[in-house]
């Protein structure tokens, strides 16, 4: 019992702090990467051959850029874009310094996930609304995104979970978070208890997120 008491008093505040840091990094970078990734995904769809804004050049450029960024592992990306990070937020360390590479990493990922989600929408439905004289921007919002909602939600669930994985490496630039905690205390200091707790928290977190995602998707799916 004494051990537990000691653990709670000694390590719980640090663990809690790490959870908060992880949440901060995930939520802020998620917000921005959706703001960038979703429109990119829509653009990827619209510029495809045969669609409303068909444009081979734009589509190919987007396609290649998304592929290039997606092929760089996050841990490399983190250091690769250090100068860019510094230019953008004035620092390359701490939570601020981690969020920029997280966004750069997640946005193209989300763009691809959104593209896939939107591809599932039956082109006949879009055509039906086109035939009714509905404006393209209305079709995007009220038909394309609406019909793709279940797949969009599932795609975002995947994106969030992979962001959590990304934040684990953010410790390398001093951003803290659960990954950093497990590394510093669990690995460097041989405090396996901290390691176990961290892993447990991560498992619970991912399980909860996936269940929420599945439920929301099911709620919007009506067939």
């Amino acid at each position, binding site marked *: 019992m004494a051990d537990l008491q000691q653990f709670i008093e000694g390590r719980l505040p640090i663990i809690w702090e790490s959870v908060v840091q992880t949440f901060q990094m995930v939520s802020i970078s998620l917000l921005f990467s959706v703001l960038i990734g979703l429109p990119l995904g829509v653009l990827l769809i619209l510029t495809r051959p045969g669609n409303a804004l068909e444009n081979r050049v734009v589509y190919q450029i987007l396609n290649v850029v998304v592929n290039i960024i997606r092929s760089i592992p996050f841990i490399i990306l983190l250091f690769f874009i250090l100068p860019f990070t510094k230019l953008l937020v004035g620092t390359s360390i701490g939570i601020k310094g981690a969020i920029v590479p997280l966004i750069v990493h997640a946005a193209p990922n989300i763009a691809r996930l959104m593209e896939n989600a939107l591809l599932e929408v039956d082109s*006949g439905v879009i055509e039906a*609304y086109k*035939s009714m004289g509905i404006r393209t921007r*209305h079709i995007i919002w009220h038909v394309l995104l*609406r*019909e793709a909602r279940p797949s969009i939600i599932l795609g975002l669930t995947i994106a969030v979970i992979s962001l959590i994985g990304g934040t684990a490496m953010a410790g390398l630039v001093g951003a803290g978070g659960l990954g950093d905690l497990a590394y510093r205390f669990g690995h460097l200091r041989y405090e396996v208890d901290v390691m176990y707790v961290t892993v447990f928290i991560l498992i619970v977190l991912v399980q909860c997120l996936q269940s929420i995602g599945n439920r929301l998707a099911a709620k919007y799916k009506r067939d």
Partner: protein
Amino acid sequence: MIKLSNVSKSFHTKKGIIHAIDDVSLEVKKGEIFGVIGYSGAGKSTLIRCVNLLEVPTSGSVVIKDRDVTHLPAEELLQVRRKIGMIFQGFNLLKTANVYDNIAIPLRLTEVDKQELHERVTKYLQIVGLADKHDAYPGQLSGGQKQRVAIARALVQEPEILLSDEATSALDPETTESILELLLKINKELGITIMLITHEMNVIQKICDRVAVMEKGKVIEQGRTVDIYSKATHPTTKRFVNSTYCKELPKAVLRELGQTGRVVRLSFVGESTSKPVLASVSAKFPVSPNILAGGIIQLKQETIGALVVHLHGEPAETEKAIAYLQEQGVMVEGVEIPNG
């Protein structure tokens, strides 16, 4: 109402240029139901999509209500499309919206005020007979009900023209029947001009006033439905017509009968339907008619009968009998005897 003049449409594909429609001209008059029939790949789907410019013709013009709409600016095209409803083989409803919203969304997106929106949605739900299903989702409806929702959605913008792209092809015969009746009702009671495409002759037979037959991107024959039924000249048209009544006769039977007389197809339209002409043939000539196949079908306006008859007798006598039948207003056409 709709006038297509010398419309052609070609697509560039990896395999080369495909001429989906090749110099097609036709006119759909106000208030009529006009059918385009053809086998798959004949270009009829591309043709109907040219009417509301979902496909822009490579050449030729599309005139709607005396206005050339072929190359309208985007904004004006939206307005034109709002007055042309369209229904599809695959229904194309929003899966994530209930019946009411499926019908209401086009109105919400075209700035119709709330009061009127509700009135119109209710009105058209009533017309298609789904007033009690307003909060069901498409996934809970049968194919026929989905098509009714799609029809209500097409009508809610109060168009003057309804385009139907194989609207009954995914439905069973009974449901097809009820959807056709609904289309007839819409045509009669709301005065909406309908242009439809189909590969099923019974759709043409039941509701079309006039029909065009398409093959390989061209219109090979067009005219009033009754004329197409009784006076078809093109082999493809004849095949479509025959598909409604008698099945093709077995080749062996035809060959055998061909040796003892002639096999002819008789079509009876209007007055000639009621005269006992075959009986008088056997009374007047040494020829005995033997009925091989036949039937009577009800077109939208007229009744038409067809018989395939073997005229057993000497060649000279059978020729006289045929001439007599023609005098009586019966359309006579020889059935080809296949060789070998």
